[in-house]
């Protein structure tokens, strides 16, 4: 996943510390690491333990909570909120597929066809980040408004009838339906797909395309047999960078959806901040973390790019 920010290690200096004639302090690395790692241990690792402990406590806000190893919280939470879990996975998967379908052509365009426009298009891909993502998500309320041009066009083309039939929209509306939420998720995480895709496409040697052409491969065959397989690291890190945040997101479901599109993030947020049922909230959050770590591990194994992480 680190391919997003990490450049290819160009001729990594083989352990310069070893070659260096100067004696370095034996403890220097530990002093350098100490403050930052302490920060991560106290404010990232330790909270995970606190969360695990909170999830097996019982009690109430007034009387306080005690660890009672009440594992039934997990079972109750799963029984009550499995639709939201399933929905999160489904929406996140749909958004990831959409991001891949939309993002690949743009990444390909920047890498191979943009020429002198390359830098400008790169800036345009990153530029939306500079406006608060909440403001941009609210703009989708205007774009998908009931009497707006988008809904009107979809209605005229009878596409809304089709999506209504498969349950993605309801009636003549797009807002407050699963389609709106997936659309928002796709929009919000699209740059996280495009950047790693671009990084891996850009490394492909252009002569490989020429070679494929010389061997009478049609453009589509070249893409299928040469370009796409070589871009797999980008596809894997892009899908992970899209799926993980999308599965835990509650902003799009809240702003663009309705009570029927609540995702697991919405449930965790309400339990923690409004209902104040800390054990249930902690259990849900723990299940989400475990589920995502499990899916990510399986996915990385299956796609055979373990060196990625």
């Amino acid at each position, binding site marked *: *996943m*680190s391919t997003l*920010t*990490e*450049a290819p*290690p160009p001729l*990594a*200096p083989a*352990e310069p*510390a*070893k070659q*260096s004639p*100067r004696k*370095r302090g034996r403890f*220097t690395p*530990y002093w*350098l*690491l100490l403050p*930052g*790692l302490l*920060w991560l241990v106290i*404010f*990232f*690792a330790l*909270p995970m333990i*606190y*969360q695990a402990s*909170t999830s097996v406590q019982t009690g109430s806000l007034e009387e306080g909570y005690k660890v009672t190893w009440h594992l039934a919280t997990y079972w109750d939470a799963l029984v009550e909120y499995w639709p939201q879990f399933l929905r999160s996975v489904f929406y996140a998967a749909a958004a990831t597929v959409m991001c891949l379908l939309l*993002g690949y*052509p*743009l*990444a*390909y*365009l*920047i890498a191979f*066809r943009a020429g002198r426009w390359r*830098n400008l298009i790169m*800036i345009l891909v990153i*530029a*939306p*980040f*500079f*406006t608060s993502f909440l*403001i941009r998500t*609210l703009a989708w*309320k205007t*774009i998908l408004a009931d009497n707006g041009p988008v809904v009107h066009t979809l209605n005229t083309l009878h596409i809304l009838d089709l999506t209504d039939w498969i349950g993605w929209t309801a009636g003549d509306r797009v807002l407050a339906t699963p389609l709106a939420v997936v659309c928002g998720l796709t929009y919000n995480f699209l740059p996280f797909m*495009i950047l790693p895709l671009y990084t891996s496409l850009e490394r492909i040697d252009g002569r490989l395309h020429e070679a494929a052409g010389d061997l009478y491969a049609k453009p589509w065959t070249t893409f299928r047999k040469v370009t796409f397989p070589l871009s797999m690291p980008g596809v894997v890190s892009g899908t992970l960078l899209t799926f*993980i945040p999308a599965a835990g*997101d*509650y902003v799009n479901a809240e702003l663009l959806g309705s009570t029927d599109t609540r995702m697991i*993030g919405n449930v*965790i*947020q309400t339990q923690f901040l409004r209902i104040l049922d*800390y054990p249930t909230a*902690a259990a849900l*959050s723990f299940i*989400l*973390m475990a589920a*995502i770590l499990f899916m990510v591990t399986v996915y990385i194994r299956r796609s055979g790019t373990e060196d990625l992480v």
Partner: protein
Amino acid sequence: MPFVTWLKRHLVVIAGLCTLAYLLLPNVIVTVFSFNKPKGRFNYEWQQFSTDAWKDPCGVADMCGSLSISLQIAVWATVGATILGTMIAFALVRYRFRARGAVNSLIFLPMAMPEVVMAASLLTLFLNMGAQLGFWTILIAHIMFCLSFVVTAVKARVMSMDPRLEEAARDLYAGPVQTFVRVTLPIAAPGIAAGALLSFALSFDDFIITNFNAGSTVTFPMFVWGSAQRGTPVQINVIGTAMFLVAVLFVLVSMLVTNRRNSQKA
């Protein structure tokens, strides 16, 4: 059929440009609607052109206050995460030590964790410690999640550095401090700058972790979130548009400067 051949040849370009339009459409809407004069409390429907909001950007109660809180947190989170992250990155590239694998995964995990999980677990820690939620808890959380991104950015740069440059400095009798300040730091600077910029953007725009750990403190994203329920003032769009313009201008100027420098060198 020349048109079909043309279409076939340019299909990927057309599809890519459509995606680009999809990415930029909300920004266009945000900008256009910063000149709107809405009828009700919500700024979702176009009514009529007006520059009222641009003339009075702080005309909404508490908005500019939240903006200033967000900026302060972003600055301090950037400073904290950049210093701590750069130290870790140097240690990882330059030294061999025990438990390197564990350190690497501790840095990788925050980037692979859904934000809501980090947010919720951090809140359980603060609740258990009885910490007062507010400015400081937000700052602590922001430094935590920005740290990993700084480490990755700086590490990439330091790894690609030629160690012979530092050896040369030492051969020319530069002391360790002098070597670091005059040689190492300038070469690592672009990586550090990239990490710092990323931290600033991530912290300034963070909502989920802030939402959990803010208590009654309102940052700018929290203000926008609240206004989605109460009524969205046009001024939000003004701030959004202004941020976008400033950032694009910043990028363009820095590109021009690097271009000029490169052409001077050549």
